[in-house]
C-alpha cells in the first residue's frame, strides 16, 4: 500500500495542514486535494525549548479550518514524545492530528510519500529512510556534543580548530583563519572564550559555513576543502547505513550544508543522491494523509 493512492479515494476534498517545525524556522502549508491553497511562515518552534509551542500549533490548526494536520516537529525523539505532544494538542483542538519528527516528514516530502531516504545537514545532521513497507529508520542525529558529524556546527568547529592550529604553529596556514576572524575578531583565541561562554549557541559555529564556502571559492584552500570533503564523507556514511538496512533506496539531500558546492558534489559522487521532490511541509501533509487514513480504516472496521 502506498500513500498516494489511498486517502483521496475516501475523501477527495479534505483540507490538510502540514507543518515542518524546527529550531531556525517553521513552515506550514494547507493542501486541498492536490493543491496548495495556503502557505504560512511561523518563527522557530522547538517543543523541547519553547513552552508555548503546543498553543501556537493549535492556533494555526484552528485558524486554517483544516480537517486534519500532520506535524513534523524537531525535538520529537520517540513515540512517547509524539504522544505527549498529541495529548497536549488534544486539549486545544479536536481536529485529527498526526505527530512525528522533522526527519520523517522530510523523507515523505522528498519522495512524495514513496520509499526513499534523506540525509539532512543543517546545524545538526541526521538521516531518515522509509522502505516500501513503511518501515522507518533513523541514523545519526546524536547532537552537537556526540555526533552530528558533517553538519553545520561540525564544519564551523573544524574551521575554528584549523585556525587555532595555525595560531599554535601546529597546523598549516589557511583561510579558515580569516573566516574565524570575520566572526570572532582578530585574535582567533578569543573564539575559544566566546564559544565556551555560550556552549549551546550552535549558530555561533554553524554561521561560519557560508563564509568558509565563499572564502574557498575566492582562493583555493586545502584545509577548508579538506573539511568540506570530510563532511561529505561523514554524511555519505549516513546514507550508506540507511541502504544497508533498508535496501537500495534513493537518497535525497536536505539542509543548508548541501548549498556548499564542494559538499554537494562530493556527496552526490559518493551516493548518487537526487534533489528532493518536495519540501518537508508537504511531507507533513503526506504523513497526515497516511496516518489519518489508517485511523479511519480502523474506525470503519470497528
Amino acid at each position, binding site marked *: 500500500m502506498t500513500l498516494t493512492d489511498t486517502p483521496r479515494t475516501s475523501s477527495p476534498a479534505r483540507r490538510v495542514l502540514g507543518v515542518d517545525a524546527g529550531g531556525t524556522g517553521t513552515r506550514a502549508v494547507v493542501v486541498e486535494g492536490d493543491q496548495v491553497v495556503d502557505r504560512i511562515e511561523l518563527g522557530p518552534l522547538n517543543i523541547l525549548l519553547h513552552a508555548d509551542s503546543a498553543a501556537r500549533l493549535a492556533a494555526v490548526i484552528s485558524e486554517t479550518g483544516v480537517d486534519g494536520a500532520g506535524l513534523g516537529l524537531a525535538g520529537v*525523539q*520517540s513515540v512517547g514524545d509524539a504522544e505527549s505532544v498529541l495529548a497536549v494538542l488534544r486539549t486545544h483542538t479536536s481536529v485529527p492530528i498526526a505527530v512525528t519528527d522533522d526527519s520523517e516528514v522530510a523523507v515523505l516530502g522528498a519522495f512524495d510519500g514513496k520509499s526513499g531516504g534523506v540525509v539532512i545537514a543543517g546545524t545538526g545532521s541526521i538521516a531518515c529512510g522509509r522502505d516500501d513497507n513503511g518501515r522507518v529508520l533513523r*541514523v*545519526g542525529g*546524536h*547532537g*552537537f*556534543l*556526540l*555526533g552530528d558529524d558533517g553538519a553545520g556546527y561540525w564544519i564551523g*568547529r573544524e574551521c*575554528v*580548530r584549523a585556525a*587555532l592550529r595555525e595560531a*599554535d*604553529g*601546529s597546523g598549516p596556514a589557511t583561510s579558515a583563519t580569516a573566516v574565524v576572524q570575520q566572526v570572532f575578531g582578530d*585574535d582567533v*583565541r*578569543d*573564539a*575559544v*572564550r566566546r*564559544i*565556551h*561562554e555560550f*556552549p*549551546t549557541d550552535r549558530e555561533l559555529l554553524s554561521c561560519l559555513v557560508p563564509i568558509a564556502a565563499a572564502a574557498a571559492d575566492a582562493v583555493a584552500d586545502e584545509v577548508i576543502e579538506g573539511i568540506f570533503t570530510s563532511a561529505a564523507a561523514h554524511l555519505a*556514511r*549516513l546514507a550508506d*547505513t540507511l541502504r*544497508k*538496512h533498508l535496501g537500495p533506496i534513493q537518497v535525497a539531500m536536505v539542509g543548508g550544508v548541501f548549498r556548499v558546492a564542494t559538499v554537494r558534489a562530493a556527496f552526490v559522487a559518493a551516493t548518487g543522491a537526487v534533489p528532493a521532490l518536495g519540501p518537508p511541509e508537504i511531507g507533513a501533509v503526506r504523513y497526515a494523509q497516511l496516518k489519518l487514513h489508517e485511523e479511519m480504516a480502523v474506525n470503519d472496521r470497528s
Partner: protein
Amino acid sequence: MAAAKLVLGIDAGGGSTRAVLMREEELVSRHSTGPMNLLLHADASDRLVALINETNAELVGVGMPGLRNALQLLKFTHDVKQRTGATVIAADDATIGLLGAFAGGPGIVVIAGTGSVAVGWPGKGRVNRVGGHGFLLGDEGSGYWIGRAAISAALRSRDGTGPKSGLPEIVERAAGTRLEEIVMRVHSDATDRKQVSKVTRALAASTDPAATAILEEAADHLIAMAKSLQASMGDLPVAMVGGVFEIPIVSRRFIAATDATKPLEAPEFGAVRLAIGDRNARDAALVQ
C-alpha cells in the same frame, strides 16, 4: 623579604582546586575546594577570594584555567588584589604545572585531566603552548575527550555507521542508563561533565579492544602535543600531569614515545614558585 611571608600556591583545576600554604620551606596547610574555571564558573573569582582570605596569605600564586590573554590576566589579578589585599601573581594552569614539574627548570609538560594542554619552556623567554582549547574545540586525549569518544563510538556501533563493538554495553553499564538517555543527559547541560567522566572511568577499567583503541588514540594525541613542542623548542624533557596518565594503557604508550617522567612537584607548588619566583619563573608566567 618575600621568604618570610605566608605564601599560598593555588592550582585551580577543571576537576578540583588544590592549594598549599607555605612559610619559607615549611608547609603550613593544604586546602582543597571545587573546580574553578573562568570560562565555565561565574563564581570562580569569588571562591578564590574566599580561599585567600581564609588563609591570610600575603602573597598568592595562582594557576587559573581559562586565562587566555594578557588583558584578562591583568583584570583578574587586579580584581583579586583589590578584594584581598594580597599580592597576586597569576598564570594559566598549565604554566604552574610546568613550574612544578621541573621545579622551575626548563621542560615540557603535557597535562591531561578533564581537559588537555601541553606547555614547554626552554629556560628563558616565553612559554609555548599547544592545545588546551576547551572541551568544545579541542582537549584531545583528555578525560572528557575519552568519555565522549567512547559514547560517540557506542552510538555509531549501534547505528551501524561505525564498527560493531562492545562499547554500547560498556557505556550503558557505566552510565546506568540507555544510550538514548545518555545523549539527552549530555546535551541537557553541556557544561556538566559528570556523565562523560563516568564513562571515562569505565573505559579505563575495561579490557575490550574498542576501549583500548580509544585509550591508545588518546595517548597518541598527547604524544603529538609533546612532539609538536619539541619540534619548535628542541629536545626538552617531558613530564606528564593529570588523571588520564593514571590509566596504564595511556601512560605506558606515552612514556614509550616520549621518555616522560612524573613531575618533581605538584602544580600547587609550581604556583608557590610562581609567587616567590625568580626572574625566570616570572618570564615563564607571561601569557604569550
